[in-house]
């Protein structure tokens, strides 16, 4: 381990061979880009799946040309079967939650910018860093492989509730090999993210440049630091849970499977397991996971917003404090996923109050963002638009948390589309807006080229309006009692089908808009306007190095930090309204 860390400091010449440079690279920047690429592949896969699901929900017996090529049993005559719908749903959720919302804002941007922003040449353990990516990549391949093996991918949802996920193929298609691959993929993914945290935390604590006190770290660095602390504990719990699940599935143990289960008239050979045990272990991971997805977004949005408001936030410390308390509380609230699961009704109350209380720090963060807009010199560009969109989405999704935090109301809304609308807005869409903001903001630094602003703005408008058109109606459906995870709606849900069709159309359009982003990304990468060192006139360290940064980030020099990260809207000798973190000059008294 030791020589790895010195490697990070006493830099050798950058690698020359293609393999070492781009594939098995030790450079945190390349690894960051690899993570970003993985996230990109995953997000478009997940989006394609959601398209198929939406089409099916809108027009249940619609034949989707060529679908049988994807799965002959899943779509005989191109019409999606119930099991295949559930399989697509499970894969959509798993891919999005793990390989997009966890990978992109945390692992991708974090790897690329954390060391630069704290003034280090690299992560302390480049080899572990490289492993972290490739392990995650293997996890992705394992998950995707389940599409083509056995009777298809798992269908028990991203929560993989036992016993459905533990009894094997007798419970239906997708419960055989697919379910094992699902659990294996998650366990592997956990290893990858634990290795990641192994680098993030020491980088933040020990590799800071001279003068870079903790109180001078950019807010997004705090976001990543807090996230890696959460990832550390959360993934360390999911992994053993997955291992036990696999054992129940393949080795006939009975951790989660109780006695006397009769499936298809066959008495199952298990005894005495506890199904609630899985739910407790899973949600102890699952709820922090939600914040693992969103906290980096909060950091990135703060960073982007400040740069474009040309002023610091009302308070730097309060934001950090709130992020910390959210992270801390997130471990005490997980039970609100289980209000009606059959756990002791008293514990429902115990979990309800922290859940309600967690809205306080969240609200304060939003208030500080909005309040800081007051009297600012807001610059409107793709990045800042997405940052503002993040706030709007976060609020929209957050308020529905008031409902779901209360067990009594959960009686009505549990497992309805209200829940789906809630977590899509607050966790998925908001987090993805954070990713977009970060992309438009940092792309020049990552690739040395500017992105096309016009395309960026078109992309924003379509996505922003589209997202509302898709996810607001989910709440209405939920209020009307529309159950989630149904592949077709009959009985009292039949009148709601038109709403589903509206959502489907909106989803198709919004999804299509993402190809504008993809085009913008690829085109700008190669033919975009060459980016200057500091296009947005920012103060933090990543903007003191060339775009893209050299192999050792600072070209052999040691940055020295003289200021907190957000010296904006100040008077300076040079006439600029900001002071770089590493510049000795001080602001003229106004």
């Amino acid at each position, binding site marked *: 381990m030791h020589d790895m860390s010195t490697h990070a400091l006493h830099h050798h010449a950058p690698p020359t061979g293609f393999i070492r440079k781009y594939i098995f690279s030790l450079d945190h920047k390349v690894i960051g880009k690899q993570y970003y690429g993985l996230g990109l592949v995953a997000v478009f896969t997940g989006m394609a799946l959601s398209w198929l699901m939406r089409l099916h929900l809108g027009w249940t017996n619609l034949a989707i040309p060529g679908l049988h090529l994807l*799965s002959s049993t899943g779509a*005989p005559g191109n019409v999606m079967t119930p099991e295949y719908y559930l399989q697509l749903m499970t894969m959509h959720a798993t891919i999005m939650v793990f390989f997009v919302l966890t990978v992109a804002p945390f692992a991708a941007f974090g790897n690329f910018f954390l060391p630069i922003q704290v003034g280090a040449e690299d992560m302390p353990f480049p080899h572990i860093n490289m492993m972290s990516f490739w392990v995650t990549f293997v996890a992705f391949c394992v998950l995707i492989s389940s599409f083509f093996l056995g009777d298809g991918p798992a269908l028990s949802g991203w929560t993989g509730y036992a016993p459905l996920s533990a009894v094997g193929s007798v419970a*239906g298609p997708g419960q055989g090999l697919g379910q094992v691959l699902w659990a294996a993929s998650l366990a592997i993914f956990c290893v990858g993210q634990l290795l990641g945290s192994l680098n993030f935390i020491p980088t933040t604590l020990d590799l800071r440049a001279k003068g870079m006190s903790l109180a001078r770290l950019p807010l997004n660095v705090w976001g990543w630091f807090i996230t890696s602390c959460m990832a550390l504990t959360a993934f360390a719990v999911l992994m053993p849970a997955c291992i036990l699940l696999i054992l129940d599935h393949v080795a006939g143990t009975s951790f989660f499977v109780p006695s006397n289960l009769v499936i*298809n008239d066959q008495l199952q050979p298990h005894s005495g397991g506890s199904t609630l045990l899985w739910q407790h272990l899973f949600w102890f991971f699952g709820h922090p996971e939600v914040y693992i997805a969103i906290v980096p977004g909060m950091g990135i949005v703060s960073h982007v917003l400040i740069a474009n408001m040309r002023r610091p936030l009302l308070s730097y410390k309060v934001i950090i404090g709130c992020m910390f308390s959210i992270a801390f509380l997130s471990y005490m609230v997980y039970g609100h996923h289980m209000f009606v699961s059959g756990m002791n009704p008293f514990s429902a109350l115990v979990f309800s109050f922290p859940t309600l209380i967690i809205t306080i720090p969240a609200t304060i963060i939003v208030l500080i963002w909005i309040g800081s807009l007051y009297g600012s010199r807001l610059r409107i560009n793709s990045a800042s638009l997405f940052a503002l969109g993040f706030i709007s989405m976060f609020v929209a999704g957050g308020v529905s948390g008031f409902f779901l935090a209360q067990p009594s109301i959960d009686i009505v809304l549990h497992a309805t589309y209200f829940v789906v609308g809630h977590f899509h807005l607050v966790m998925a869409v908001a987090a993805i807006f954070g990713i977009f903001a970060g992309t438009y903001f940092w792309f020049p630094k990552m690739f040395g080229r500017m992105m096309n602003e016009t395309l960026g703005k078109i992309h924003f408008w379509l996505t922003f309006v589209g997202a509302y058109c898709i996810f607001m109606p989910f709440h209405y459906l939920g209020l009307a009692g529309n159950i989630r995870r149904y592949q*077709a709606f009959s009985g009292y849900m039949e009148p709601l089908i038109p709403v589903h069709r509206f959502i489907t159309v909106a989803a198709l359009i919004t999804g299509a808009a993402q190809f504008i982003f993809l085009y913008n990304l690829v085109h700008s990468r190669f033919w975009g306007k060459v980016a200057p060192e500091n296009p947005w006139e920012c103060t933090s360290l990543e903007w003191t190095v060339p775009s893209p940064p050299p192999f050792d980030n600072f070209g052999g020099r040691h940055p020295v930090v003289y200021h907190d990260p957000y010296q904006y809207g100040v008077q300076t000798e040079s006439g600029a309204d900001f002071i770089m973190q590493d510049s000795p000059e001080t602001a003229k008294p106004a």
Partner: protein
Amino acid sequence: MKKNRKRVSVVILAGLALVCLGALLMSQKASAAAEGKITGTVKLNGAAPHMKGIDMSKDPYCVKQHENSPAHLENVVVSSGGGLENVVLYISQGLPPAVSNQVASGQPVFDQKGCMYTPHVLAMDVNQQYKVITSDQTTHNIHPLPNPLTGNIPWNESQPPGAPPLIKSWKAEEVAIPVKCNIHPWMHGYFVVVKGPYGTTDSDGSYTISGVPPGSYTVTAWQEEYGTQNQKVTVTAGAPAKADFTFKAK
């Protein structure tokens, strides 16, 4: 890779078909001289057991299909004359390999109609292709549960309304494979997979096993509730041999 698998399986199926055809021709040559058959009736001795009615209220579509013909279990279906329906008869002993290995021509059809299986019991030869179709406007899943020891592989696939037929076959002898629909738990039937010629009783309990070369055999009758009965018969060229069975009501 999926494509490849498909291509491979197609090739295998084609090969299989050729082999079967060959076997067919050969055996026909062998027994073309004298083609015997076994006929008879299967009756139930005693009062027919009460067949519970089926409450399909879970799926309104199914209810509608049975508005004026209430559905009942079909475990034991007896005609007014006491004839027992859905009994499968096959030759359990005495068949020359050439005959027992030959696969009957044609694809027996297993239909899902009014959330019931028609026929309730479907007999077929080992490796004979059978067809599962749906006439219903509601989705069914077909889930046969063979005994794992026989080497038959269980499967479980859904058929949305208007989906193309599923063409399948069993690779090992098995009497009988229960098949059910999980979406409509009352739906159940049987696949009876045998070697050589077979017959199934019609509504008044009579059956015919054709394509039997002269010789003496053991004929077995299988009924899902009453199990099996055996009978020795001798088939001579020309005149059909007769074998009647009587199951005793429990």
